[in-house]
C-alpha cells in the first residue's frame, strides 16, 4: 500500500469524524436539551410582609380579688366534671394568693361513680361551710336535692359560678359531618350543667360560636365585649374566648359579656350572642378556656379572671345554709340499692325501665350516665 493511500484513508476517517461531530453539534444546538427558561411566577398572596397575623396581646397578669375576709371556695368534681386543676389554675392561684381556701368536692368515696346514695347530703353539707361554689363542665346531671341545696345556697348569699364549653367541641376546619357511629370524643366527657343552670333561668346553648372575619387568629377564637358595667366586667374591654357556647337567659338574669356579629355553629346564624350572664349570686360563662394558663392573660382576659375571682369571694353568705335535708329523704337508705339518685327525666318513662312494676312513684328511673 502506498503512503499516499494511507494518508487519504486517514484523511477520509478524519473527515467522517468531523462530519459526524459537526453534524451532532449543529443538530444538538437546534434540538438539544433546553434549559427551563420559565420565570418565577408571581404569587400575589405570598407577600410575607402581609401574611404574618398579629398576635393577640398577651402582656397582662391575673390580679388579686382583694377581698376583705378569707372565704372558702368549693370546686365540684363529683359530677364527672371535665376540669383538671391546671386548666383553672389562674383562677385558683388568684384565690389562693389572696388568702382564700379552695376545696375540690369529690363527693366522698363513691359519689363520683354515681352509685352513692349519700352524695346529695354530702354536697349540701359541704356547701354549708362554703362561701362560693364552682361548677365546670359536669358530665352527669345534678339531682333535684342538689339543685335545691345550691339554690338555697345562692339565695343565702353564696356565690355560684357555672362554666361549660360547647358540647362536642370541634376544632377541625372541615364542613362535612362526622361519619355516623364515630364519636366526637370529648362530647361524651364534657357536659353542661343544663338542669342546674335552668333553675336559675340560664340555658347553655348547643354548638360553638365562631367569627370568620374578626377573630383571635382562629375562627373559634371570638371576642366578647361587656354588655354593661358590672363587677364582672370592670376594666374589661375585650375578652377572648377560644371555645364559647351561647347562653340564653330569662328576665331575671342579665347579660355580662356578649359576642357581637358572631355565628353559631349549630344554626350558622349570625348575631349577637350572650356568653356570660349573671342572675343575682349566680354567674354562668359559656366557656372554660379563658381560665387556661395560656389564654387567661391574652387580651383583657386577666381582668375578667380577676373579676370572676372577686365575684366568688365578695358574697355575704348566711350561716348554716343549705339546711340539712328534711324527712323527705329517710336515713338508712331505701329498699332499692344500686341506681344513682338521678333526677326524673323530663319525659315520661317508656315503660321498659320498671321491670317488676313495684317501684315506688318517687323512685327515679335509672339513667345511663355513670
Amino acid at each position, binding site marked *: 500500500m502506498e503512503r499516499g493511500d494511507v494518508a487519504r484513508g486517514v484523511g477520509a476517517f478524519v473527515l467522517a469524524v468531523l462530519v459526524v461531530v459537526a453534524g451532532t453539534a449543529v443538530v444538538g444546538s437546534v434540538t438539544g436539551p*433546553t434549559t427551563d427558561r*420559565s420565570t418565577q411566577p408571581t404569587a400575589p*398572596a405570598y407577600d410575607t410582609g402581609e401574611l404574618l*397575623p398579629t398576635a393577640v396581646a398577651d402582656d397582662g397578669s391575673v390580679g388579686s380579688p382583694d377581698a376583705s375576709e378569707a372565704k372558702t371556695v368549693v370546686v365540684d368534681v363529683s359530677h364527672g*366534671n371535665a376540669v383538671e386543676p391546671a386548666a383553672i389554675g389562674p383562677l385558683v392561684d388568684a384565690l389562693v394568693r389572696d388568702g382564700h381556701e379552695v376545696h375540690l368536692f369529690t363527693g366522698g368515696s363513691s359519689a363520683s361513680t354515681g352509685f352513692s346514695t349519700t352524695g346529695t347530703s354530702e354536697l349540701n353539707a359541704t356547701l354549708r361551710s362554703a362561701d362560693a361554689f364552682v361548677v365546670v363542665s359536669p358530665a352527669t346531671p345534678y339531682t333535684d336535692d342538689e339543685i335545691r341545696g345550691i339554690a338555697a345556697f345562692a339565695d343565702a348569699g353564696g356565690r355560684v359560678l357555672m362554666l361549660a364549653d360547647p358540647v362536642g367541641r370541634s376544632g377541625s*376546619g*372541615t364542613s362535612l359531618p362526622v361519619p355516623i357511629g364515630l364519636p366526637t370524643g370529648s362530647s*361524651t*366527657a364534657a357536659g353542661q350543667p343544663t338542669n342546674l343552670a335552668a333553675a336559675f333561668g340560664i340555658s347553655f346553648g348547643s354548638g360553638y360560636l365562631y367569627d370568620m372575619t374578626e377573630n383571635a387568629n382562629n375562627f373559634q377564637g371570638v371576642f366578647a365585649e361587656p354588655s354593661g358595667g358590672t363587677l364582672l366586667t370592670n376594666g374589661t374591654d375585650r375578652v377572648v374566648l377560644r371555645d364559647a357556647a351561647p347562653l340564653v337567659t330569662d328576665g331575671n338574669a342579665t347579660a355580662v359579656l356578649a359576642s357581637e356579629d358572631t355565628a353559631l355553629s349549630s344554626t350558622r346564624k349570625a348575631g349577637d350572642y350572650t356568653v356570660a350572664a349573671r342572675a343575682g349570686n349566680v354567674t354562668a360563662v359559656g366557656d372554660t378556656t379563658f381560665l387556661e394558663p395560656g389564654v387567661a392573660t391574652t387580651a383583657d382576659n386577666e381582668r375578667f379572671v380577676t373579676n370572676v375571682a372577686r365575684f366568688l369571694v365578695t358574697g355575704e353568705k348566711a350561716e348554716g345554709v343549705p339546711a340539712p335535708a328534711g324527712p323527705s329523704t329517710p336515713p338508712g337508705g331505701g329498699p332499692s340499692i344500686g341506681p344513682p339518685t338521678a333526677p326524673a327525666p323530663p319525659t315520661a318513662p317508656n315503660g321498659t325501665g320498671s321491670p317488676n312494676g313495684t317501684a315506688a312513684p318517687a323512685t327515679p328511673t335509672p339513667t345511663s350516665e355513670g
Partner: protein
Amino acid sequence: MRRSRGFLDRTAGLMVVLGVAGLVVGAGVAPFVWGAVGGPGGSVAVVEMHGTITSETAKAAVDDLREARQNESIRAVVLDIDSPGGSAAASEQLYLAVKRTGQELPVVAAVTGMAASGGYYMAAPADRIYVTPASAVGSVGVRGVVPPEGVPPGEIVTGPDKGTTATTAEVRRRVESLRQAFVGSVLAERNESLELTAEELSYAKVYSGAQGVELGLADSVGGLDTAIADAADAADLGSYEVVRMETPRPSALPGLGLRSNDTDPGRSAEATFDYRGVDTVQYLMLHGRLDTDRSTATREVIINGTR
C-alpha cells in the same frame, strides 16, 4: 489500465464514505422531517395527581411539569386531579409549579374525582378547570396537627419548643397565615369568575362539581378528554398525541410491613405525612377528618379522666 482502475477504486471509496455520511445525516434529520410532515403537531402531557399529596407525589408532579416546559414537543398540559390534598408545603410547591408552567403553556385541569384542599390549590392556577357533576372541589383550608406538649420521659432537649416546634398560640398563628395565603391565592387565581368572598371561601366547604361551576371554583362540566381537547385547542394543535405522566405508586415500604396494617387508618395517616418515627407539627391542606393515633389517645385520656 492500472491508472484508471486506481481512479475507480478511489471514486468508489469516496462514494462509500459520502454514502455513509449521507445515511448518518439523513437518519438524524429524518425524525424532524417525519414530525414536520406526517407526525402529530405536538403532545399534550397529562400530569396525574392521584391520592394524597405527599412530598413524594408532589415531587414527581413538579418534575413532570418541568419536563413539560422543557420538552418542545409538549405543547400543552392537562392536570388529572383526584386528590383530597395533603401536606401544606407540598401543595404550595405544586401551586407554584403549575403557575410557572401556565406562563409557558396552556394548562387545563380536569377534576376526575376530587380536588379538595391541597388538590384544589394545585388546580387553581390552571387556565380552565373541568369538573363532572359528581366530582368535588373546594375545602380551601388548613389544619395543624400538634403533638402533645412537654418533654417525653427519657429525652433531654435543649429548649422548650425543641420537641413540639412551637406553642399552641404560635401554631395557631401559623395556620392562620397559611390560610390567608391559600385563600388569597384562590381569590387571585379565580378572581374573574369566583362568586365567593374570602369569608365564604374560608368555611372550607367542599362543593359538588355543578355547585363549583356555579360558584366559579370551576369553569365547566367536562371529562378528561374534553380537557385534553381544550388544551390542544389552546395550543393550536391540529393533530397531537397524549403523553401520560403518572403519579408514582406508593413506595414498596408499606407492602413490606414497614407501615402499620391497613386496619388502623390513624397509623397510616400518620405514616403518610409524618417523618417516619418523628412526631412533628404537621400542617396539612387535607380534606376529611383525621383519625390518628393521637386523637384516639387523646379521646381515651379524656374519657378515662372523667369517668
